[in-house]
């Protein structure tokens, strides 16, 4: 794929404020790994200037709409409208030209086959977990704990269920599933199966809570982080997060774009992460 000029196949609002965009992408199925992302160029003019990072939700093939042509390979992103760039994206249509750079970054490591997998995701944090689930369901039992502020934040449940993933929904306002935080559900799940492995993506406070739980129980954890990004390829050093052992004199910064966005929990200096590392405003 790399830097790719292509076209939109579909762009639809799937829940208030959440959109799903399908983009034509030859090679995507073979190239994209669970947890990787792409940099989306909102328009070809210079405003907004920078590309926007989005996780790759899934890849696949759809039948061509021209008889006799082979199926069309695509990838999908799911995005929440939070600012100028995503607002402009929501106005794009089938057939519009876009430019994407990807797949980028390190994705998830599949863990040990056989051990139960618990995926934890909030809102748009579900995005990188879908391809992970696709990959894991073959060798392990997979459970998804999804949380959100309200029922609007609970998206794409059916897609996960279709894979055979058992899903647990909780919302802070109780408008869907259990009332409360997803971390409470995680505790229960780990009580039931202390040998599980955990994969999480969502706002930093949630990740910190998940980390606390997993650390205490010595459960393997991988997290997918967000950061402000300019280049997406490890060149600008805008997206750094503090790695374990980091100090002023021997800096150990990790690039979220290149060494992440997925990290094993042990890689990060959890006690030294600022609230601006690992997650952004839009992710709350």
């Amino acid at each position, binding site marked *: 794929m790399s830097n790719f000029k292509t076209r939109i196949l579909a762009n639809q609002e799937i829940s208030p404020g959440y959109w799903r965009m399908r983009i034509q992408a030859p090679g995507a199925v073979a190239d994209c790994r669970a947890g990787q992302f792409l940099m989306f160029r909102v328009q070809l003019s*210079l405003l*907004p200037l920078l590309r926007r990072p989005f996780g790759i939700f899934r890849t696949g093939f759809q039948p061509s709409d021209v008889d006799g042509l082979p199926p069309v390979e695509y990838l999908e992103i799911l995005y929440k409208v939070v600012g100028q760039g995503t607002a402009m994206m929501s106005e794009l249509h089938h057939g519009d030209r876009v430019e994407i750079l990807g797949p980028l970054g390190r994705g998830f490591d599949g863990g040990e086959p056989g051990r139960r997998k618990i995926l934890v995701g909030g809102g748009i944090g579900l995005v990188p977990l879908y391809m992970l689930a696709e990959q894991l369901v073959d060798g392990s039992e997979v459970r998804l704990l999804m949380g959100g502020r309200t029922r609007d934040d609970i998206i794409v449940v059916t897609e996960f269920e279709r894979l055979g993933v058992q899903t647990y929904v909780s919302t802070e306002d109780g408008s869907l599933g259990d009332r409360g935080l997803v971390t409470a559900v995680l505790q229960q799940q780990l009580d039931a199966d202390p040998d599980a492995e955990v994969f999480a993506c969502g706002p930093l406070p949630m990740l910190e809570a998940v980390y606390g739980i997993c650390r205490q129980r010595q459960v393997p954890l991988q997290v997918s982080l967000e950061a*402000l*990004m*300019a280049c997406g390829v490890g060149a*600008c*050093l805008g997206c750094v997060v503090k790695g374990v052992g980091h100090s002023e004199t021997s*800096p150990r910064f990790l690039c979220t774009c290149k060494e992440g966005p997925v990290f094993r929990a042990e890689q990060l200096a959890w006690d030294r992460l600022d609230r*601006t590392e690992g997650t952004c405003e839009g992710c709350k």
Partner: protein
Amino acid sequence: MSQQSTAKVSLAVEIAGLRMKNPVMPASGTFGYGEEFAPYLDLNRLGAIVTKGLSLRPKAGNPTPRICETVSGMLNAIGLQNVGVDAFIEHKMPFLREINTPVIANFFGNTLEEYGEVARRLNEIPELAAVELNISCPNVKQGGIVFGTDPQAAHQAVDVVRKNLDKPLIVKLTPNVTDITVIARAVADAGADAVSCINTLTGMSIDVRRRKPKIANRTGGLSGPAIRPVAVRMVYQVVQAVAIPVIGVGGISSAEDALEFLIAGAQAVQVGTANFVDPDAMQQVIDGLERFCIEEGIADIRELIGSLEV
């Protein structure tokens, strides 16, 4: 571009003895150490490669957030995070050595001694074609005055580097000054072989809901298309003021943008922020320069340099 047309136009330029296939190179800090862009671009086709700014010791840089977008531009306060000159030699040069494009190491210091010492070490790398001295840094021993904003301090920094360096020396100027020609003359007098301008304009952006600066360092450097008119003006002024060659930097993202600088008198150009927007931005600039020359019936791009009619 067909090979036919390539044969017709010469894009080659030479700066202070440094021969380049074309006048297009990355701006320091926007292209990593080259390898980050290898998947997107044939590094052999660039005029030169300029590295991230190096310092004597590894540098942690600033807290996050370090970047934010502005209207047609961006602010950065990376804080010159880098691996340090020794790690550069050990880990980054082996990759760069294999590329058939001259490598220019950008570096900085916070004292005169540091400038001199980094220069000395860089001077020992045979495969390094030239160095670019970033003087937009505070002198920690002299009340934090920024070397590049004071003609004396700038002169001193260049002087100490010159004494430790045999390679071509490019000095990168900051635009945050009243009269950039004064600084340009000072560094030329101190023995610079060329100047590059401009570095970023100091700017600030505020998150009005949180009442906080958008980047942790409060202020940062403004780059991107928004600043191009300031950069073109300063390059034009410096070209008039000094006899040494000038490299134009600031807001270039297309061949037409690059041509503004060349026509104003720059011998070469650097592409910065545009690399983030388009990882093959430089390739597009190079192809576009060639196309422009063909369209305008120009056989050698050097005919365009300084061709401004005023």
